[in-house]
């Protein structure tokens, strides 16, 4: 091959890959079944409160490459399952001054089926918005006499994922009315606030531009139904609050802390944007 035809085929290659990028726009058409048995709803009608912005909501799985998608289709390939397995052991291990394990009170972890789709939710007694991390740490410090876990540590996120796994395939269904309403409104306001020197809101990318490429990143709707999610870039199970923090940091803003009331409110609002999508944790993303 002479020089000229070499560069001609190089140009053709560049043109072809430019085409491939353009064809990327929007979610793909793939469907997700895990372990050949659990069907995951990755696309459904948007909840009523989003009717003026979306017709359809999509799981982030639909925006990833085939290679990344395949890692979530079989638990043996899913790198997040190692942390979940460790949590299963911790679940049955007595800890703290009381000498109890999770299993001692709750019996089998499958008894948690149905809880994750409703989280976070308002505790009727205290009036506080409670995330799964809060509930786990409350058990540890108040009932087990054990130390609280760090919000985004493997111990905590493994347990959040293990409990979530019991609801895998069930539709997200967080309450946004009644006592949840003021938290939901706070989270909504945050979602549309343009933070930092780049003046970017969640909505700028995940509502107005989902499906588009921002440099090498294919923007999703920013759904949380797959969290805790195994993020290949960070090579561990990532909490919702950690991802919120990373996104706000990248607007050149002062972030909020993981476990802050602001992020609890944002967690509720973002979860409500995914009402109807299946619980997917531990999902696998880029």
């Amino acid at each position, binding site marked *: 091959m002479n020089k000229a035809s070499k560069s001609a085929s190089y140009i053709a290659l560049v043109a072809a890959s430019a085409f491939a990028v353009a064809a990327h726009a929007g979610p793909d058409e793939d469907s997700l079944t895990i372990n050949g048995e659990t069907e995951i709803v990755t696309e459904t009608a948007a909840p009523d409160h989003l009717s003026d912005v979306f017709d359809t909501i999509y799981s982030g799985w639909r925006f990833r490459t085939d290679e990344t998608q395949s890692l979530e289709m079989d638990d043996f390939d899913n790198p997040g399952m190692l942390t979940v397995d460790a949590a299963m052991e911790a679940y049955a291990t007595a800890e703290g001054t009381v000498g109890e394990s999770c299993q001692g009170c709750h019996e089998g972890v499958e008894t948690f089926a149905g809880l994750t789709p409703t989280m976070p939710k308002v505790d009727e007694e205290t009036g506080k918005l409670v995330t799964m991390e809060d509930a786990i740490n409350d058990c540890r410090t108040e009932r087990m006499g054990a130390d609280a876990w760090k919000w985004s540590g493997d111990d905590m996120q493994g347990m959040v994922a293990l409990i979530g796994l019991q609801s895998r395939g069930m539709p997200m269904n967080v309450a946004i009315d009644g006592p949840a309403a003021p938290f939901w409104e706070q989270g909504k306001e945050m979602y549309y606030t343009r933070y*930092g020197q*780049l003046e970017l809101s969640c909505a700028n990318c995940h509502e107005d531009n989902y499906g588009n490429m921002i440099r090498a990143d294919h923007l999703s709707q920013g759904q949380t139904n797959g969290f805790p999610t195994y993020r290949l870039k960070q090579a561990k199970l990532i909490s919702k609050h950690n991802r919120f923090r990373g996104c706000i940091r990248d607007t050149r803003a002062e972030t909020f802390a993981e476990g802050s009331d602001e992020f609890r409110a944002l967690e509720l609002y973002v979860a409500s944007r995914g009402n109807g999508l299946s619980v997917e944790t531990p999902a696998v993303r880029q």
Partner: protein
Amino acid sequence: MNKTLGAIAAATVLGTAAWAETVAPTAVAYDDYGAVEASLTGTPGDVENGAVLMNKGAGNCVACHQIGALPELAFQGEIGPALDGAGSRWTEAELRGIVANAKKTFEGTMMPSFYKTEGFVRLGNAYTGKAHEGDVAPLLTAQDVEDVVAFLMTLKDE
């Protein structure tokens, strides 16, 4: 006496000249349509550095815009319109206004304001996630803006 007056006059002229050379981010004169007629520095833009800013540092224009003239840049974004032909579609003054603060031209646009230092919500210290302290530097310097505009002016319709 005359000498003193002359010295004061000279100092004033010098001072004015130095001030006029770089327009502060808070002093940029946008017209009703968001355009900025006067150069921010008085120094002509450097096309080559403008091309570098398309890819790197605080510019990173290619994160959101496609630039056909720079095919060597991988992963060109799809958020904003392609910049091809920008130098034919817009005047230099319009491009200067859009780069400095696009919100003056397109109300509510997602595009960051590259020559602005005020009015941010929870301004951080670059990408650390921590609060910003002290004087605020714009995303691009005045000369960077001129360089970017000079590069964009070379992107003519074919």
